Structures are given as C-alpha cells and as structure tokens.
C-alpha cells in the first residue's frame, strides 16, 4: 500500500499519512458497531432487549452516545497531575492503534511490512500498560490506582503465556511476519494453522491437538490482556467504580473506550491470523472464480473483518457467561495453568517441527 502510493504520487509523507490513517477508517465504524453489538448481545443473553429507542431497534444509539460524549464537559479535578493525566488516554490509544500497523488487512494492505510483525505487536502493546498506569496514578484516586496496579500486574503476567504460544507458532511456521503467516495458510480452510497448516503429512494430524491447546491458551491470555471479563479486574465496576478511568470524562473517556474496543479487535485479529488464516477465505475467492482480479483484496478485507468480529463476539459471549475471577484466581490461572501448559506445548511443537 505504502509503496504503491509512493509510486503513484511520489510523495512519501502523503503515502505514509494515508496508509497510517487507513485503520482509523476501519476502527471507528468498528467501535460504533461493536459497542452496539455488545449491548445487544448482553441484552439478549439476559432475555432483555437492549437499546430500542434511537433508530430502528436502537441502531443509532452508539452514534447518539458518541455525540453526547463530545458535548460533555472535560473535567480535570483538583489534585490531579494535569500533564500526565491529559497525556494518558492518548498513550493508551496510541498503544492500541500502533498494533494495527502490523495487521495484514488483506494481501494488498498492511500498515508496515516489517518482518518482526508479531514481536512488534507484543512489544508495542506494552505501551498500553504504561498509559493505564499513568492514568491510574495521576488521577489521585484510590480506585483508579487499584485498577491501574491490577491492570499492570495482569497484563504483564499474561504476556508470558502469550509470548510462549506465539513462540511455538513461530518455531513451527518459521516466520514472524503476520503477512507471510497469512499467505502460508492460503486457499481452503484445511490449510489453516489450527488444522495443522498447509503441509500434508503425518505431522499435520499429530499437531492438531497441540495447536488446539495453543489456541485456547492464546485466546485466554489475550482476553486477559485486553482486560475483558472474566479478567476485567482493572475496571471492575462493582469494586472499583470504573478502575483507571474513573476520573475521566468526555472525549478522554471516549479515547479509553476506543482503545479498549480497538484492542479487542486487535487481539481477535491476531488470533485469527495465527490460527485461522487471517484474511484468507475459507472457500476460495469469488474474484478468482469469476476472473475479477480487483475483487480479491476486498474479499480478503471482508474475511479478515468477519473473523475478527467473530472472535470479538466470542469475547462478548464469554463476558456475559462468566463471573469475574478473583485476583488470586487470576494469578493461579496464569502462573499455575497457562504457563506450564504453554511450556509443554512449546516443547512438543518444537520437537515435532524438528523431526
């Protein structure tokens, strides 16, 4: 995308700006739809109706809420460290938005074609922790501080199983670039990594159970990393008011919201790229069968978004199914269960790859 834009216009700044701004065009509508979906899913799972008044079945509710948030007064309480308080939401959002740079939306569009894609994502999402800590600490509010501390502890612990699972997948596929990883899983769904990858042979079938375990571990730990229920202790409403963003209002609060939903999609996309073929269609492309070449990238974007949104839906589904875990249970799940399993998994997948 970046290269072709440079070729067409000859302006590197313009090209960089456009390709950097592309995910926003995806992210903002996604967040609006996802918030609506979240409300509707939660409502229907509890046999309620959810928003019904604004537009047909409340379709415009999130847009109305968005305008409401814009109009709100931007409150900065006394005793707050203003500089960092104002900076934190931007840092959080930047951290979650930077992840999109390495996500392959289609074979034609990826923000940055770095070879270190997946490690870049793990590293840059650490920025979110800094932002959350900053928000919690500068708010000068004990609930915020608790939330921020819990969040930091949680994200850092859960980064270990995430990294271990990703490491085993990297060992097996031999690439760190998400674009290459998606390309390898091309054509049909039996080539997806969760079903043993594109190579036919005995290893494909031996690997499937271990990949399944890897998938579950990755999904659970990314769930914890984006602070979603059942791991939503940083913003546990019933205990901590709203956690680290208690003191925020108006647009800054909206930034946190945007970052949270952005993160949800980002981790879902990573899971889908690693295990479910990323932007690859499960049944081949309509564009190829009809002979319309330019349709293929759009189909890929569609499949990428569809898989991402499916996993976001599963996150919501889990949220309305499970109660919140306690802090000690949270740590138990991570250190006593996920990490040993992912180590064993890493070993087994490593040995199978070697053989």
């Amino acid at each position, binding site marked *: 995308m970046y290269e072709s834009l440079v070729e067409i216009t000859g302006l590197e700044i313009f090209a960089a700006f456009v390709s950097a701004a592309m995910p926003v065009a995806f992210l903002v509508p996604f967040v609006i739809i996802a918030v609506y979906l979240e409300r509707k899913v939660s409502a229907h799972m*509890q046999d309620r109706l959810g928003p019904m008044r604004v537009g047909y079945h409340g379709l415009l509710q999130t847009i109305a809420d968005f305008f409401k948030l814009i109009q709100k007064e931007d409150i900065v309480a006394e005793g707050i460290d203003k500089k960092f308080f104002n900076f934190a939401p931007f840092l959080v959002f930047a951290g979650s938005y930077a992840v999109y740079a390495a996500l392959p939306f289609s074979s034609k569009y990826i923000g940055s074609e770095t070879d270190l894609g997946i490690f870049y994502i793990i590293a840059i999402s650490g920025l979110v922790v800094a932002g959350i800590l900053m928000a919690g600490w500068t708010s000068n509010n004990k609930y915020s501080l608790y939330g921020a501390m819990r969040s930091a502890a949680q994200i850092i612990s859960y980064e270990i199983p995430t990294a271990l699972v990703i490491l085993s997948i990297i060992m097996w596929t031999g690439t760190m670039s998400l674009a290459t990883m998606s390309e390898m899983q091309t054509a049909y769904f039996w080539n997806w990594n969760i079903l043993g990858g594109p190579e036919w042979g005995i290893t494909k079938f031996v690997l499937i159970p271990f990949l399944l375990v890897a998938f579950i571990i990755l999904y659970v730990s990314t769930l914890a990393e984006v602070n979603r229920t059942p791991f939503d202790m940083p913003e546990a409403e019933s205990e901590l008011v709203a956690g680290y963003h208690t003191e925020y209002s108006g647009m800054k609060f909206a930034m946190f919201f945007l970052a949270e939903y952005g993160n949800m999609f980002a981790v879902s996309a990573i899971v889908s790229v690693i295990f479910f073929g990323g932007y690859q269609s499960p049944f081949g492309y309509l564009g190829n069968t009809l002979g319309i070449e330019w349709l293929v990238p759009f189909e890929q974007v569609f499949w990428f978004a569809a898989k991402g949104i499916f996993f976001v839906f599963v996150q919501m589904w889990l949220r309305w199914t499970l109660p919140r875990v306690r802090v000690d249970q949270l740590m138990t799940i991570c250190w006593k269960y996920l990490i040993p399993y992912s180590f064993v998994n890493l070993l087994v997948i490593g040995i199978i790859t070697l053989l």
Partner: protein
Amino acid sequence: MRQYLKNTWEGIWTIIIGMKITFKHLFVPSVTIQYPDQKVPLPERVRNRLYVNMDDCIGCDQCARACPVNCIDIETVKSTPGENLGQTSNGKKKALWVTKFDIDIAKCCYCQLCVFPCPTDCIYMTDVYEFSEFKRNELIYNFSTMQPGEVEEKKDNFEKFQAEKEAQKAAAAKAKAEAAAKAKAEKEKDEKSKNNNSKSSSNDVS
C-alpha cells in the same frame, strides 16, 4: 497431577456448558415490556388515583374522617329550603353544597380507607397511575364543581337565610314576650280589680 489435569478439564468443560446456556438464551424471546408503548395489564382491584363523582357526593365528610393522613379537605354549606340540589343516583336527597373538596394526592397513601364509608359510592379508585407533576401544588386535586362566585353566593344565601331565620325567631320571641307581658298585665289588672273588689288590705299575690 491427576487433580491438576482434572481441574483444567473441569475449567474448560464448565465454561463450555456456561457458553451453551448463554447461547441458548440469545434466541429466547425477551421478557422486556416497552413500557410507555406497551403496558402491563393491571390487576382487577388496583389502587391508584382517586376520583370523586361530585354529582353523587352528599358532602357527609365521612371519607375525610376515615383518611389516616388527612389529605381530604371538605367544606360544605347548608342549602336553604327553597333550593333543590337534586338527588344522588341511589336516591338520597342532597342537602349540602360541597363548596370545597380537595384531595392532596401527594399525601395520599392509596389505602382506600376513604372509599368504604362513602354512603353513595362516589369516591373510588381509578386505574390511572401516570399523573406526575412538576410542582407539588399541582397534585392537590379540586373536585368541587362549584365556581368561586357560586360559593360566595351560596354562602351569602345561607347567611341571609340564617339572618332571616334569626330575625324571624327574634320577632317570634319578641311577639311571644309581648304576648306574655300582655297576659301578665291583664292578669295583674284582674287581680287588682278582684282585690279592690274584696277590699282586702293585703297586696300582691302575683
């Protein structure tokens, strides 16, 4: 070790069961009632806003006395004999002008105690329950059908009538007194003449 594996399995399995349940509920029709558009049918004997049918009220004040929170305020004026107030639907003759019948619904506790003593069944509960107001004063309901001018008129009428009655009474009393005095005088006269007639020195028997 076995316990450990069992824990893991149980964790995953229970989550799957839970997810199955929530997924089923995703397709269960919801129980929400879209309130202002759609209302729950009320039970038969609901107690909501009071209503007084003033055509039937005889102003007996029994409801006001029954009310535990004194939220009914009734003032009446007696009618004069010439006036015809009509009858209630169950055939009682009305004798009082109900000049004021205020119910302070803000105070009312919807106990329905005022309903039972009413001899003409004209105060009763309706099924209206949406009557919030912005000012508390607006919750004082005036049921009296009489205009202020009319009230004055009736009061004046009654006073005039009273005054007339007083006057009549006074006149009657005066007449009586006069009559009595006359009678006495006459009697005295009689006695005097008798005494004179009998020529006794003793005086005054009256």
